[in-house]
């Protein structure tokens, strides 16, 4: 994996791994946390928690709808359930249950989707969540959080457990570069500026943050100065940071591992249209399903590269 190389970042753990470890480490501090799995705890890494706290881990089998309903019942009875599956199955297969049993009554359920995006690779489109941000952001009162790396995941998992109300946490499968240090502080709802710049701002989250930082380095070489904002929380969105970016840099590129509709790009575009209209270019997989392949090959084929961000930045600067 070459992500983060240009920016001088070193490869760290996958977000899902950091999630599993963090959950286990927080297990004693949050004694009402329980996990509810749909037979993929070894993929989502809730297994790490469930092995450490066997009485607090439930596996209800391959039955995502029931899984979410059970989690809602546990929450209504005072637990903090962390319910997880592949992001595609959690968000798509149990959407009505999330809507009715979690979002509508605003129950304290933490929903974690692993294997988000096309970077999962060889398993192909059926296992890739490329619409989960659209779906989960369309739930009033649900916080939608997309960590960029392992260290920030640790913080955001704690933030998620402390937050009162439903949260969706999106995790990737593959190892990603470390962007944050162990002491970085991240707050749900507050975007994080990773690099300043004056010609444009690249807004990204998840896997795309490292790629955005690479792109910023390449742009610098071309004389374009790019601010990079980690928009780890998509909902509620940090309007202030976005407006500030527009005011100070004039234009935006939004990069996300998602399809165009309903993702970070359209959320940002709604904010700017209302508060600070400006040119934006969007970097995403396009309006398509992806396919099987190696993660790096897929990212390239579906346009999620530093080169694509550079091209978008050049384009937006020329508008």
């Amino acid at each position, binding site marked *: 994996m070459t992500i983060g190389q240009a920016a001088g970042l070193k490869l760290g753990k996958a977000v899902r791994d950091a999630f599993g470890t963090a959950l286990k480490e927080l297990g004693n501090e949050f004694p009402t946390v329980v996990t509810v799995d749909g037979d993929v705890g070894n993929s989502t890494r809730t297994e790490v928690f469930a092995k450490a706290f066997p009485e607090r881990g439930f596996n209800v089998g391959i039955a995502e709808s*029931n899984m979410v309903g059970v989690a809602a*019942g546990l929450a209504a009875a005072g637990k903090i359930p962390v319910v997880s599956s592949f992001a595609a199955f959690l968000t798509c297969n149990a959407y009505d249950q999330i809507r009715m049993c979690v979002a509508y009554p605003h129950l304290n359920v933490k929903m974690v989707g692993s294997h988000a995006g096309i970077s999962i690779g060889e398993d192909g489109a059926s296992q890739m969540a490329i619409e989960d941000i659209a779906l989960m952001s369309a739930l009033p009162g649900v916080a939608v959080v997309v960590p960029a790396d392992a260290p920030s995941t640790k913080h955001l998992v704690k933030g998620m457990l402390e937050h009162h109300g439903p949260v969706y946490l999106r995790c990737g499968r593959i190892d990603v570069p470390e962007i944050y240090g162990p002491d970085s502080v991240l707050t749900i709802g507050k975007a994080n500026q990773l690099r300043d710049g004056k010609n444009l701002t690249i807004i990204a989250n998840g896997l795309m943050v490292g790629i955005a930082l690479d792109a910023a380095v390449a742009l610098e070489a071309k004389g374009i100065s790019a601010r990079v904002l980690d928009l780890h929380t998509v909902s509620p969105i940090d309007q202030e940071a976005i407006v500030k970016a527009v005011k100070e840099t004039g234009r935006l590129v939004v990069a996300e591992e998602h399809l165009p509709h309903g993702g970070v790009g359209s959320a940002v575009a709604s904010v700017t249209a209302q508060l600070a209209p400006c040119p934006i270019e969007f970097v995403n997989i396009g309006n398509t399903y992806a396919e099987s392949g190696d993660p790096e090959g897929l990212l390239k084929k579906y346009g999620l590269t530093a080169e694509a961000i550079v091209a978008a930045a050049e384009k937006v600067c020329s508008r």
Partner: protein
Amino acid sequence: MNLWRHGVHWLREDLLLNKFSRRLPSKEYRVAIFKPLSLDEMKAKTKVLRRHIVRMTTEAGSGHPSSSMSAVEMVTALFFGGFMQHDPAQPRWNNRDRFILSKGHAVPVLYAALAECGYFPVEELMTLRKLGSRLEGHPNMKRLDCIEASTGSLGQGLSVGVGHALACHMDGLSAHTYVMLGDGEMGEGQVWEALASAEKYKLANLTAIVDQNGYQQTGATKDVLKLTEFQPKIESFGWHVQTINGNDIEQVIAALTIARSIKDRPTAIVSKTQKGFGILPVLAPTGDLNYHGKPLSKELAEKALALLAD
């Protein structure tokens, strides 16, 4: 804990109603909850609930009276027959017994029972489905804290019940969770997922009640799908199952008593009922015995109320 179970209860008058309520309860409701009604009293109560159902849906001009009617004996036995231990002063008391109405469209029967218990004033029933009322067309637990689950999308309540039952079990609580489903609703696969998960965890503190009233939205349940032999199906999922006439309150009480005595697995009651039971003589002449999702006209409501008079 056991004190509760036997009807002794410390009363805090100041907390008797939940924070949204506007008036103090009558003495009656406490007795109703903590001392089981006699059989005759319960039979009278079924009429009270039925009258509420007719009145509130006709006043609302929409809603599901026939779906509510079939469930009256079961709801009456649960709330007034000593099966459910709960406290209008603390609707979220953690060891309360839970009743989840998975067939949420039948919520008038639940509102009627809750009002009779004193959770909110009986007069509030007449606000059903009106803008601003907490008595919405389908149960909304966020707005009314005596509601255990927000339902209305069919098929989901039993899963929520499994969650409650698991939590109670973890916390060493004796609370029992009852979930009522419709026979049409049994078509939802999620119900079968929930049945399987309850079997796995041997949730003896969970009872599913299938209100088998023979109809669903577009016709007879046996015509829409052929699921109607529920007992062998649910048994094959490892549950203890009884089939009864659910409009016979004595059979209902007997079945609930047996259900509570089973200690090694979840229990189900297939409650064979009639949709619109109690007002069928009024519905029959309309030629629509299902009468799904329609309130009675003012005229029919008068007739029904006459039929349901004490």
